């Protein structure tokens, strides 16, 4: 035994051992399936802080031949004080054989000093067939704790509690599929009750996890800030022939614009999920609904890279230079009238000829055309729509246990609109200012992330995420 708190998660097959490990280790790669025997060997989940292991969770295969194993042990029993030695003999004799592979695998870490976390399903009735495995665990003499995991209901929790209390000093209910972050930390703290020497490293681990959660919020805030900065100024353009009717292209360009926004949103969603350690969520979410009327504008483009405004400015500047020469010629007697008139004529001339220039062709190449532009969305509400959707998704992801493999359905939840309504008015004003600056082309991503951080943290508070809207994973 190394002194590092180690916990073997054991029990009957299909009682949610892997679910508990998945949620506590925040690892959605843990295989969870309705088939018994999905876990075929022990797998360690060390909790590390800068490579220093604080505690280890071990997922184990379930008991498969507990009655016959116990029968063997009873056959070799001498006295109660030698129970552990009998279990050790059992493992020593059967290790490497096909007779009791699962029992040997799950007992090995316990005999190496791991604490026992015995898992039972509180949604199914208790039965005497569980007693053999609990008895074997008792024989090991290791500190133990029982977890009732109500996989699909709490109908039999009390029945289980009564039975488990006869074998385990500590019995807790822990729903691996919906446990909040705080509930997970609380359970980890509870493991410290098994052994006084484990209390301190577990407290350190819990503190580090809580600290890490704050950093997760900051990462999320930066991700959402990046999303908002991008979508606020997002524009899709399409170059058209000079005589083309822009109305014919509006629908397809609007669709392109929406698709690009959607893709950017999807990227942010995936990033937030990865920040929270969810790498395989199947997400169902509708697109952004906008009631914006003035998404489109048209301009002219010219072969040499100018837009109409620049062309007019160039014309005005050219006219001003010529007029300035006349002013200089008359020794300033014209009171800069030449420059002013020249600028006005140059600008007006450029404006008047811009459409004609756009239609010109040189060597069959168009010199210009019309530019149809969709976006950016100018509605004051637009960033709040995007933010509301993002915060809702974040709350659902932050509150989601890693054992939950159901689809994440982000539907029309009435709570979603409330994210913005609940926001502090001062923060709302600050967001308004930042959104305005971003729309004007200023770089405010860091300020936006800082402003969003408390909102994100609030979204991860207990009870912030609704559990409705999940669709069970297909089995």
């Amino acid at each position, binding site marked *: 035994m190394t002194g590092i708190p180690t916990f073997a998660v054991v029990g009957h097959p299909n009682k949610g051992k892997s679910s508990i490990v998945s949620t506590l280790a925040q690892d959605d790669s843990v*295989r969870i399936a309705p088939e*018994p025997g999905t876990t075929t060997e022990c797998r360690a989940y060390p*909790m*590390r802080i800068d490579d220093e292991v604080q505690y280890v969770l071990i997922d184990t295969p379930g008991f498969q031949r507990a009655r016959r194993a116990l029968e063997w042990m009873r056959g070799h029993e001498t006295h109660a004080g030698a129970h552990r030695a009998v279990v050790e003999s059992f493992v020593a004799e059967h290790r490497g054989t096909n007779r009791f592979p699962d029992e040997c695998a799950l007992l090995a870490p316990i005999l190496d000093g791991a604490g026992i976390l015995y898992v039972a399903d509180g949604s199914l009735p208790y039965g*005497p067939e569980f007693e053999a495995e609990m008895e074997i665990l008792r024989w090991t003499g290791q500190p133990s704790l029982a977890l009732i995991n109500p996989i699909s209901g709490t109908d039999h929790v009390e029945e289980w509690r009564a039975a488990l209390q006869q074998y385990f000093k500590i019995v807790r209910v822990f729903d691996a599929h919906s446990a909040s972050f705080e509930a997970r930390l609380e359970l980890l703290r509870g493991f410290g009750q098994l052994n006084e020497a484990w209390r301190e490293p577990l407290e350190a681990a819990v503190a580090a996890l809580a600290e890490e959660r704050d950093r997760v919020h900051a990462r999320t805030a930066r991700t959402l800030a990046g999303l908002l900065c991008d979508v606020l100024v997002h524009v899709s353009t399409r170059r058209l022939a000079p005589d083309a009717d822009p109305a014919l292209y509006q629908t397809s360009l609007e669709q392109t614009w929406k698709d690009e926004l959607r893709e950017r949103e999807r990227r942010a969603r995936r990033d937030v999920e990865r920040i929270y*350690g969810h790498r395989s969520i199947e997400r169902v979410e509708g697109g952004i609904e906008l009631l914006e009327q003035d998404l489109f504008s048209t301009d002219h483009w010219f072969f040499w890279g100018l837009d109409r405004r620049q062309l007019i400015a160039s014309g005005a500047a050219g006219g001003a230079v010529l007029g300035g020469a006349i002013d200089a010629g008359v020794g300033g007697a014209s009171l800069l009238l030449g420059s002013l008139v020249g600028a006005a004529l140059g600008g007006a001339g450029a404006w008047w000829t811009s459409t004609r220039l756009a239609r010109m062709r040189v060597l069959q190449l168009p010199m210009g055309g019309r530019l149809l532009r969709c976006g950016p969305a100018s509605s004051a509400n637009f960033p709040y729509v995007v933010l509301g959707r993002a915060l809702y998704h974040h709350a659902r992801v932050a509150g989601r246990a890693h054992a939950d493999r159901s689809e994440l359905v982000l539907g029309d939840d009435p709570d979603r609109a409330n994210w913005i309504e609940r926001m502090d008015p001062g923060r709302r004003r600050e967001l308004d200012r930042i959104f305005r600056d971003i729309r004007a*082309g200023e*770089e405010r991503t860091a300020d936006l992330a800082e402003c969003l951080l408390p909102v994100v943290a609030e979204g991860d508070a207990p009870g912030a995420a609704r559990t409705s809207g999940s669709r069970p994973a297909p089995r």
Partner: protein
Amino acid sequence: MTSTSSPPLPRVDLSRVVDLAAALEADAQLDPETLRRRDRTLGRALGERVEGATARVEAWLDARRTGAGPSSGERALRAQRVLRTLLVLAGLLLGSSTALTVFAYDGVHPVNVVQVLAVFVALQLALVAATVVLSLPESWRRRVPGLAALQDVLRLASPGRWLPALRGLLPPAQRDAFDRAGALARRHQRLYGNAQKWSLLVASQLFGVSFHGAALVTAAGLVVFSDLAFGWSTTLHLDAQGLARWAQRLALPWSHALPDAIPSLDLIRQTQYFRGAGGFSGDAPRSAAWWRFLLLCMACYGLAPRLALLTFASWRQRAALRRVFTTLPGVADLRDRLESRWVATAASGAEAGGPSRPGAPRPRRVARPARVRAVRWSGVPIADGAVAELVADALGAELAGVVDGGAGSGRADADLVAELAAAGDPPVVLVKSWEPPLYEFLDLLGELREALGEGTPLLVVPLANPGEDRWEPAGGAHARTWARRLDAAADPWLEVVTAPETVGAETEG
């Protein structure tokens, strides 16, 4: 612990920004945990010898560097330097040729002082003013009407804009790197806008400095190596006294240090000429006294402002690049990874064996026996009467008897197998559908088959309990789990009796 001083880190330039952006973009494809572990390991190593967030990011970038060849950023920087060198050469050429033109003296027409001042002072001051307008902060574009358009137009005329036109002269590798840097800037326009502006101004001022340097050297060369005569002539209403006043104003910066370099009123009067009145009639050697004034004007109003602007623009460019370097998307996350403790809870590596996707159980139906003996396995709480009813309804068979099993010792299981074999009636084992089939149960089936011999039907009924005393063969996921698992026994006379439509129904998503 004694900390060792780190070597001075290079200044942030274009190559560092391009390399950092490329490294961060490459990292975006990696698993966050892998990144956190890698960068934290590096961050801890750096923590002892590198101080300051930006310095740590730079050190990280150095550590990420692989390969001996130039990085993408270095190639982009080289490309920029080549282009700027071309711009400097163009400035030298143009400055020199302009000076040769303006200071041309054919022995008949003197060098026109007004022309020199117009080209090397008035025009340059106007261009310096334009540069100042271009340098105004981005936030002013919104506040000052017309400024945005004016800046756009001035930018079009800036020599820095010629750089992209010269990119065709670059070797392919540098051209690619230059294009990639341009694409990066376009992608993050909000971030790079300021750095681009100052980069453009640096290039423009390099051109200006080389132009004025070359013009000054050429003019000085002409003064030293040829004889020049100076005069002044203009159609404008300007008399000698007026020009003298302008000359004194222009000479203010050096009037105390070099009083001889201010043209006197006499010199100005004597060197005025009109082409229509027979041209220059002044004293050519005496007119040469203008040269010091003119060269100082070129230095003071042409070269010096450009040098000052070049210094200022370079400083602002460095600041802008440093800002880009520290605010690039992903830098805040990188700093977080470098500076925060790495907290990991997941297992390293994928779970052995790979994900198994269970197939559908094979439909199987064995000949139904007329009489069966039921086994209540593992304490399934069904009463004898209910067993008889179930056997009749689900199997159409008569119940010969009910025995219990699976709750005692291994010896009890062996006795049960012997009893069933001796009884002669095919057994039907009633199990809890909600509990999974264990190897222990598969062992029993194997032992039963051995005892019963081939050909005897062996039925397993996973039970569901929809009501108080109602029992029926289970359907759904539980039943399929039993059917699939018992398929593994490969016993052709074994059937898992489930609710209709359960076996063979494929529901996996």
